């Protein structure tokens, strides 16, 4: 099993969700985060006081998938989240030890 973490631009979330749904991926967790890679932030000015804001709003999408579909999921996310502009984000794939469905107690493959 693999845990896929994707940091994407907020306005691409709906495209990513839809693309994953078409792939049969039904569960995901989404959180609002801040971050930057090589993309520069922006400058705010209030009565002459300048504030450089380095961290930009991003969305983190987390999904647990079985190993055999991991690569397909990563590629799907990449295509849906891409704009071609700097700041599109990154995807990380981590190994997962165990997965449990809380309602039923099912584990691993049955819980995905």
């Amino acid at each position, binding site marked *: 099993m693999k845990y896929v973490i994707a940091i994407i631009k907020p306005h691409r979330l709906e495209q990513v969700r839809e693309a994953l749904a078409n792939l049969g991926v039904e569960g995901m967790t989404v959180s609002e985060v801040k971050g930057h890679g090589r993309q520069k932030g922006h400058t*705010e*000015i*209030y*009565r*002459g*006081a300048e*504030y450089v*804001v380095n961290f930009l709003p991003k969305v983190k999408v987390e999904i647990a998938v079985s190993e055999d579909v991991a690569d397909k999921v990563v590629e799907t996310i990449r295509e849906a989240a891409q704009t071609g502009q700097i700041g599109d984000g990154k995807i990380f794939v981590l190994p997962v030890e165990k997965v449990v469905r809380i309602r039923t107690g099912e584990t691993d493959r049955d819980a995905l």
Partner: protein
Amino acid sequence: MSIRKNWKTLAGAVAAACLLMADPALAEEAKLDTGNTAWMLTSTALVLMMTIPGLALFYGGMVRRKNVLATMAQSFAITALVTVLWMVAGYSIAFANGGSLQAFWGGLSNAFLVNMGKDTLNGSIPDSVFMTFQMTFAIITPALITGAFAERMKFSSMLVFMGLWVLIVYAPIAHWVWGGGFLGDAGVLDFAGGTVVHINAGIAGLVAALVLGKRVGFGKENMAPHNLVLTITGASLLWVGWFGFNAGSAVAADTSAGMAMAVTQIATAAAVLGWMIIEWITHGKPSVLGMASGAVAGLVAITPASGFVDPTGALILGFIAGVVCFWGATSLKNMLGYDDSLDAFGVHGVGGIVGALLTGVFARKAIGGTPGLIEGNAAQVWIQFEGIIATIVYCAVVTFIILKVIDMVMGLRVSEDVEVEGLDINLHGEVVHD
């Protein structure tokens, strides 16, 4: 009866009536004017609205979210505190007759409003209305000062400071200008409080900012306003309410009030555009905070002038105020390095000084009875300058003393931990949730 007898009877009756009217006590009895009273009742409400929620929102939006409740609480609590103190002693100190000390203060003969009966008149309006109207000015002046020490003052110390300040600084200065004191006698023109309210609050703010020191992280951390929606809403309420502040200072529903309302609107609009233009040129973008600040700058500057200038004078005065206060709230602060957090001095102090001086320039005899520089009376500018200096010196010295005494007794600033974590949770036990 014959016709001749009727005429005699009539003549006799008329003569008797004339004799009665010649009695001074009967002839000069002040009469309540319902138009004036209605307007002054309304003005009082408008000016109170300027503080709550006007100023509370204006300042509240400009601080960081962890301090928004504490900031708004300052305006709200000051409203309550000053109301009581005004009733107890403030109104008397400002507007009673101080006898031998009349040049400097009004004394305590009217403490607890003992001389204010239900039917007591003050000119053509009830004294109860005049008292409450003036109370709203006494409320907003200390509330303005809070902008200078935002995000770092203890609530308890703030209350003690404001209580002392309103009685020892505000009320006497109000007496000097409006209550029969020496500045009014000297001919200082201050229609609605350029010196009494704005220079006063601005200088006290500057002193407080210097005494309390800069906020932790000033110059390094992001201290951006957390919600400018609140700020521009507050500025809008200030703008509308200011009609009560300026036009209400005519204490009558008359042509003076009408012209005051017109010039207030024109000057404020000019100031908004002035600030907007200079900011657009120097920073590339016209900010919302800038527009709101420009409006306040114009409102402050037209305050002393509102009963004395004409629309053209107001237009020029307003534009100048917008540009100069932009400088005061940006460059001046950075140049001298003090943390006047919400620009109490930069906007109210500087704007008040600009307005008070330009009143001496643009005053027209036909509007308010006194000519200014543009009508050949250069001396008026000097008189204005005297009023400004007297206010600045007294206010600065006494404010400094009050602050130092409070600092010795109970401290002024919150601890660094409290300041970093936020005033809302630490001083009031409350937060604004997402």
